[in-house]
Structure formats: C-alpha cells, structure tokens
C-alpha cells in the first residue's frame, strides 16, 4: 500500500508540456481569423489577377496593409498549431515527428516574415 497522497502520485505523470497554451492559442487565433478571413476573401477577390499598379495601390491603403499583416500572422500561427496536431497524430516515429515539427516551425517563421516584409515594403513604396 502506498502512503503517497493522490496528488503526489499524480505529480510528474502528466504530459508536463504546453497543452493548455496550445489549446488557448489555437482558439484565440481561430476567433481572430473569423473577421480577418472574411475581410481577406471579400477584399482580395476584388484585386486578385489585377495588374501590378492596382494591387500595389490596394495594399498601400493603410487599412488593407494592417489587416493583411494581422491575417498573415494569425494564419501562420494557427497553421503551425494545427499542423503540429496533425503531425503528432499521424507521424509515429519519434525522431521523424520532432523533425517535422521543427521543419514546420522554421518554414512558418520564414514564410511569415517574408510576407510581412513584403507587405511593409509595398506599403512604404520602397
């Protein structure tokens, strides 16, 4: 018979990772993406496949540039969180799993920063 209290027995047995933060961040980005996605689709549909100067002018509007930056940030953050769960569910081997997770994070930061810099560059007219 163990003399440990139930709490002492449970301590250290949890995943002790970052599940709660992941869960909260996924929901927060999801809520943010509801209005952002609606703006993105209904605004972008008017300029997609238009010429260079039209799209440049569109993105130079302050409102559009800010919302595009927010959309990109929320989208890549949400994508990283979602892809993480998919990888954790379907990739069985431990090292392949870690490799995929690291790769996703690197890719998301690279693509996210590239896009953000592009938006800023167009916005400033550089």
């Amino acid at each position, binding site marked *: 018979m163990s003399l440990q209290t139930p709490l002492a027995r449970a301590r250290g047995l949890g995943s002790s990772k970052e599940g709660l933060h992941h869960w909260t961040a996924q929901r927060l980005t999801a809520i943010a993406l*509801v209005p952002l996605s609606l703006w993105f689709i*209904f605004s972008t*549909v008017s300029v997609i496949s238009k010429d*260079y100067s039209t*799209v440049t002018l569109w993105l130079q509007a302050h409102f559009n540039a800010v919302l595009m930056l927010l959309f990109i940030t929320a989208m890549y953050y949400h994508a990283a969180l*979602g892809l993480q769960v998919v990888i954790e569910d379907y990739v069985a081997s431990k090292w392949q799993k870690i490799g995929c997770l690291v790769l996703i994070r690197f890719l998301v930061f690279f693509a996210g920063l590239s896009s953000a810099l592009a938006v800023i560059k*167009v916005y400033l007219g550089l």
Partner: protein
Amino acid sequence: MESVNRPLSPHLQVYKPQLTSVLSITHRATGVFLSIGTLLLSCWLVSLATNEITFAKLNTYISAWYGQIILIGFVFSLFYHLCNGIRHLFWDAGIGLNIETTYKTGYAVITAAIILTIVTYLMGCA
C-alpha cells in the same frame, strides 16, 4: 516507455464514414490545404514587393485554368474551415454537442461553405 505496434488514434481505414467523421477529417484536410495555400499567398505578396515583371508572370499562372482551380479550392477550403471552425468553437463552449444538433450544424456548414464560395466566385467575375 515505447508502445509496440499500436494503431495511431485517427485510424481512418477501419472507421465507418459518417457525416460527423467525414466533416471532421475534411476540417483537417482543408487545414493542411490552407497552410499550403497561405504559402502561395506569400509568393503573391513577395512577387508584388519584388517587381512588376515577376508579379505579371505570377499573374499569368493565377489566370490560367489550374490557377483558378487552386484559387476556388482555397476559397472553398477557407469558408469550410471557417464555418466548421465556428461549429468547433461552439462545441468548446459546450453548445450543440448532441447528435441531432451535430448533424444539423454539419449540413449547415456544408451549405454555407458552398453558397459563400459561389458568391465569392460571382464577385470575382464581376
């Protein structure tokens, strides 16, 4: 503690498809597709920031039939993931979890995603 040859949780091959399970896996599939689509959005933004020639070249791909198919696929995936994501947020709040409501909201999600995609397509043509 390495588990031996246990199936991973969402083992789709042995699970009978139902509306609920099909919508669930579609949520994931559209999520992965949207992640790839966001990379294409980044390409669009970066080409806009690069120069007029690069942007014009990318535009010819967007205007081509395969570009249009990817675009419609992206819009549908975004609307589907958005509508079903709202369904998920309600579930997180403990609302609409009984089977009857789950089926009703499931059909509502499909209908809404299709209608919104058609509306967006018509807006793009206008």
